[in-house]
């Protein structure tokens, strides 16, 4: 069930940021529930204490009250009752989290690399931003993130989301902004000297403004195009075929590989997703493809930065995808209005300056790539 389709009471809680994402009202509603419970118990306990303290205050210096040792009924009662309440909070909190955790299948992808002390964003269309992120309203945006150095945490308070970025691996986070405006970006994991300066703003724009902003980056190569250049320059092409057919190279053919399962040595199957590609570049012998020699060189962060790996991944994802751009505009299943997921084919045809995105959010790491048949309603 989609997060937006969950019924959630629209509550505004005091001293809270704006609600600017589909997730925010759920968080605020849960917060309101907890506030009510906390205020209730605080008032009850404090009230009882004050009442007892006054009513049963010592009146004579030598009075000794009759002892009362306990009551099984009360003990069981005030164990079960808080446990029950706690379980309702657990279920609500866990279900909210679980639904928000899984990035939706169709989403506009943005790559994020954190480093001391800035956030670097790259759109699939090639625009790069530092400490700023422009996104369209109403679009699902999926962030694939890592860091070049220490652990940071990308935090959007108005969206009520954050996720740590950990060196050596990718983490993911997604959101759908529900209102236009300018909102904060913070780093929320202490990372050294300029931790408090490592932030900026996210600009949520309506579709036309976003298209204009994209067009303003004319000339910027898409991430996949940059990845393709790297693929040639760094010698990947010398071992890895990118077209079907032809002679098998020294390494596995990458055509159509992304999203599929790959047999590896020492028995096993691994899904070829962003993490596997990154690992194969940084540590080729870790999960060596079955039937191949361990001859791939290691590429350290001096040879290929995290951003460059992300560009290579963007390129590899295009290999074997259909040329027609399924824009994921409608495949999201959302019944609400505007195009999600970036440039539509119409926009591309009519705007010669708009870069041809090789694909716009039509495949996720978990699914095999769409081959043009999944999106029935454009």
């Amino acid at each position, binding site marked *: 069930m989609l997060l937006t389709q969950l019924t959630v009471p629209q509550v505004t809680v005091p001293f809270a940021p704006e609600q600017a994402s589909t997730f925010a009202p759920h968080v605020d509603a849960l917060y309101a529930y907890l506030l009510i419970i906390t205020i209730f118990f605080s008032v009850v306990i404090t009230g009882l204490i004050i009442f007892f303290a006054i009513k049963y205050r010592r009146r004579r210096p030598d009075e000794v009250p009759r002892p009362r040792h306990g009551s099984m009924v009360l003990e069981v009662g005030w164990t079960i009752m808080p446990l029950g309440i706690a379980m309702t909070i*657990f279920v609500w909190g866990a279900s909210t989290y679980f639904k*928000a955790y899984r990035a939706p299948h169709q989403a506009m992808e943005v790559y994020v690399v954190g480093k001391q002390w800035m956030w670097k964003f790259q759109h699939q269309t090639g625009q790069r931003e530092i400490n700023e992120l422009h996104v369209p309203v109403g679009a699902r945006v999926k962030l694939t993130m890592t860091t070049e150095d220490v652990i940071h945490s990308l935090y959007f308070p108005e969206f009520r989301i954050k996720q740590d970025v950990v060196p050596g691996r990718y983490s993911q986070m997604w959101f759908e902004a529900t209102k236009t405006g300018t909102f904060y970006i913070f780093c929320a994991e202490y990372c050294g000297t300029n931790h408090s300066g490592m932030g900026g703003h996210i600009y949520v724009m309506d579709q036309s403004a976003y298209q204009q902003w994209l067009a303003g980056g004319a000339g910027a190569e898409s991430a996949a195009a940059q990845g393709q250049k790297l693929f040639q320059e760094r010698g990947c092409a010398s071992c890895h075929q990118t077209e079907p057919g032809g002679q098998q190279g020294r390494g596995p053919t990458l055509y159509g590989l992304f999203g599929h399962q790959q047999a590896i040595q020492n028995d096993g199957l691994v899904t070829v997703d962003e993490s596997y590609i990154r690992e194969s570049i940084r540590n080729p012998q870790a999960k060596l493809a079955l039937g191949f020699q361990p001859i791939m060189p290691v590429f350290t962060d001096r040879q290929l930065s995290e951003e460059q790996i992300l560009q290579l991944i963007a390129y590899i994802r295009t290999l074997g995808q259909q040329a027609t751009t399924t824009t994921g505009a409608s495949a999201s299943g959302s019944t609400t209005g505007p195009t999600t997921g970036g440039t539509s084919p119409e926009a591309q045809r009519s705007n010669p300056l708009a870069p041809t995105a090789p694909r716009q959010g039509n495949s996720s790491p978990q699914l095999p790539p769409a081959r043009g048949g999944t999106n029935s309603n454009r």
Partner: protein
Amino acid sequence: MSTEQTAGMPRHEWRSRFPTRNYLNADYGIKSWLLTKDHKRIALLYLISVTFFFALGGAYAAAIRLELLTPQGDLMQSHTYNKVFTAHGVLMVFFFLIPSIPATLGNFLVPMMIGAKDLAFPKINLLSWYIFMVGGILTFSALLFGGLDTGWTFYAPYSTSFSNTYVVLGGLGVFINGFSSILTGLNFIVTIHTMRAPGMTWFRLPLFIWSHYATSLIFILGTPVIAITILLIALERLAHIGIFDPALGGDPVLFQHMFWFYSHPAVYIMILPAMGVVSELVATHTRKPVFGYSFVAFSSLAIAVFGFLVWGHHMFVSGQSVYAGMIFSLISFAVAIPSAVKVFNWTATMYKGSISYDAPMLYAFAFIGLFVIGGMTGLFLAALGLDVHVHDTYFIVAHFHYIMVGGAVMGYLGGLHNWWPKITGRMYPEGWARFAALVIFVGFNLTFFPQFLLGYMGMPRRYHAYPTDQPVWQVLHVMSTGGASILGLGMLIPGVYFLWSMRYGRFAPANPWPATGLEWRTPSPPPTENFAVTPVVTWEAYEFRPVEEMAVIGPGKSADVPGNQNPLSHAETEEIP
């Protein structure tokens, strides 16, 4: 002075004859203190040390709050600020909160409450203090040389591969300090098992003992893990072994698992002794047994056990699996229940009690109220979907300060006041004590309540500067700093009058409140051997008995023993209307 002479006399007029021989004057000279085996003297050594670290940690806190008065980072450079909050955390957590109650009140009272002459291993007890001092001096040196800037949480890879500060030296101090905890825990467990007086069965023990027993379990099972973790940090820094460095095949999140595996139980180390104190305060100052004794006792054990199973709730957004997150969230809710049970039982104890407003009871009231807020905000954090928003913000900071200051420190202060007459043979001035308690309570809430609001609004923690376009944030920060000033001043007041009381305070009788524990059946201050004859316990916990039966335990007629006054002229219990 016998009870016949004191019967009917207003309490403020009778005085004890100060016992001529007690543990304070049993021997003189610095060597008699630094080489003592007496658990009571060791407790005082610890009292002086932890007070020093508390004051130092508090000074760092003042610096933090001063910087945050304005959004810009204009008081100190960010690098300095990072060292300041790290120092505050390291000093307060490892050198104040963890040792404070167990090493001062625990050391003093555990043998006395069970009717023993000392702990099982008196020399190891002294060794614990020396280890604590060595660790403290090393960490203090690290601060003097230039500090460390990793945060008290030492997260890798910042602490292992990026920080240029005295991580190994500071960490070494904490590592060594851990052994002090382990030895204290060992001492308490063995003592409680093997040295209880005849008739002192497990379920006649004061709840303070149950709490310290549970705490000691955590000491010995948890502390070795932080020791190894710090050692690995040092090895990583010095020898690049690669355990936390992904470039070498390591995992930075592994550090977090190891660190929090100890550091979550550590927070129960900080709160369980305070809960034990509160049980004693409530029983003493309402003159009733704690309601639901066995439930409170078992709750202490349950908290200790469950506390080891929830560490992942510090890591919901760190990259652990969503299923792990759910399990940790579920158990985190479960661990809140025993604490709630205790709060309900303390409240029920007050029903139809005889409630005094003496300072210890005021601190007990403060503890219960503030612990409810702190504990319930823990439920906010255990809820996965909500924690994503407030993790690493000031909401967390407010939550743990409500528990650690509003809970543990209130418990500590209440305990100091409650047992001050026994420890020093003097009464503190009650009027000033009540005033200070009020100032501390007001100052505390003004400091930390605004931080809940700041956190929900998105203010991250460990921030040297915050957005200048949020006037509400600055207003809340100014309130918080104002509160911190009041809190700091309030804390100074007991510092002054406790010292004053040691010279000018009214002499205290053996049992001023009175209370029922064995520790009150000794003169104030007690002799070195605590009890002239081994007590034989034939009564239940918190049982008020006729005055003759609650007198100082000693040879000869109890009424003749000095310091044996008790304001209860009769002990028939009555129904409170």
